[in-house]
């Protein structure tokens, strides 16, 4: 089935972004790439491929590819939170990944995804920030999490969350001590510890086509055709810990419930993938 749709003529029609083309497919209950409405694309996860980073990962969700590299540095803590470490996510959608993005300062979408990750980190307490503190009010770890999209084919949010989590699980921090006598910082690179994560979220994104059809894991073309979005984040126990619905068309309650059920199932699938990769 897939090969038929991906034939040269099919590809031509895929590029012509017409609603009718999509509606014809939905009537048959199938999407142009051969998936069912609630079916996710296959995923590939690889960790630790960049040795200059403290932790790194590469995720492919269908064709969408995101590389996440985490650099850990020592810094002075914020005056408002003297005993807490700092985590700074940053998503880059450069013109390299899709002709949609133009060179220059970060586009709106990149900033939205960055903010989403920031909210997720803050509100779900996924990293115990107290663990990142070396000495109260003096020295803490700051984790710069840079996510670079290298191929954009929709659903950047899910791919970003998965790659961020996989990279965080891959982070190894060296042991740091402050020598009281000479007030110098001693870093023991031989003795490293993995980061303790309090929860391990997985996000699942849905989009609404024509007010009534919900599709999971949209591609770039589907994102352009659909209006509303719903992102549900679940943790390792299958609880819903974060939800975002940035406007768009109205959704019925039953639809939301359906999405929640699907998100929980998908969450469990991704958790096993995390386990397989990080061991």
């Amino acid at each position: 089935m897939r090969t038929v749709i991906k034939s040269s003529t099919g590809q031509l029609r895929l590029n012509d972004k017409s609603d009718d083309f999509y509606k014809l497919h939905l009537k048959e209950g199938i999407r142009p790439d051969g998936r069912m409405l609630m079916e996710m694309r296959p995923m590939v996860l690889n960790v630790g491929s960049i040795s200059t980073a403290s932790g790194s990962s590469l995720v492919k969700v269908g064709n969408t590819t995101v590389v996440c590299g985490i650099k850990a540095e020592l810094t002075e803590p914020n005056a408002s939170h003297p005993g807490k470490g700092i985590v700074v996510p940053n998503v880059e959608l450069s013109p390299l990944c899709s002709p949609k993005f133009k060179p220059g300062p970060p586009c709106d979408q990149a900033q939205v995804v960055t903010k989403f990750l920031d909210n997720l980190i803050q509100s779900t307490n996924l990293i115990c920030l107290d663990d990142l503190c070396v000495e109260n009010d003096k020295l803490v770890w700051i984790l710069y999490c840079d996510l670079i999209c290298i191929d954009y084919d929709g659903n950047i949010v899910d791919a970003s969350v998965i790659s961020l989590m996989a990279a965080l699980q891959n982070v190894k921090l060296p042991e740091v001590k402050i020598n009281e006598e000479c007030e110098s910082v001693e870093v023991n690179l031989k003795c490293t510890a993995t980061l303790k994560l309090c929860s391990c979220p997985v996000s699942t994104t849905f989009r609404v086509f024509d007010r009534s059809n919900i599709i999971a894991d949209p591609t770039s073309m589907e994102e352009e055709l659909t209006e509303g979005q719903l992102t549900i984040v679940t943790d390792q126990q299958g609880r819903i810990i974060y939800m975002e619905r940035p406007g768009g068309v109205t959704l019925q309650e039953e639809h939301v419930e359906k999405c929640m059920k699907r998100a929980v199932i998908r969450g469990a699938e991704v958790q096993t993938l995390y386990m397989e990769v990080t061991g």
Partner: protein
Amino acid sequence: MAGLELISDQGYRIDGRKPTELRQIRCRLGVFTQADGSSYVEQGNTKVLASIYGPHEPSSNMRSKISHDKCIINCEYSQASFSSAERKHRPRGDRKSLDMAAHIKQTFESCIHTTLYPRSQIDIFLQILQSDGSNYCACVNAATLAIVDAGIAMKDYVCACSASLAKGTTLVDINHVEESAGCAELSAAVMPKLNKIVYSELNGRLHEDEIGKVLDSVVLGCNDMFAVMERTVREHVEETVSNFTHS
């Protein structure tokens, strides 16, 4: 030399290579779906992604540069902030990146048949994922493969390689440690079949008697690089053709 022995008494380099040995090269073509041409090149620990868009209609900020007899080449070089040992605060737009982008642009302006694509624009985007010396060379090699993948007409392959001189021995394809040891560094881009040098840059002081020797080994390194790149392209084409015939 700054207390660092670049070449051991037995004639081996810090990473165990022989002086004229290249690092392990891995390359792949057609890695992305969105770009018109793309490639991934690994030279030792230097990892580069290249993607090509075009030839397409010039974007609005390029309108002023439109030429009626040739295409515009636009190059953007970006180095991931986690790519080096020290975190980079600006992945692109700093002076070093702009300089690199300009050099790569000039290299390809002389190699692409620009007159075949009048009033159009070709974008070369390069992303360094991990940097371990010879970034320019890895970028040029990656961009060449991506241009081949995009099907844009070139006069010849462009292959780049770098070399340094330590204790009278030339070290080919230098890594970050050798690069930062303070010796002279010569990098060049060569069109191997036409036997022409497209670009060369020398950093640091080198005696004029020795330049010839170093340049020769750079060209040899480029030819080695060419053999690998050509094999990759052939394999890629064979694979693509077999996919066509089986489906």
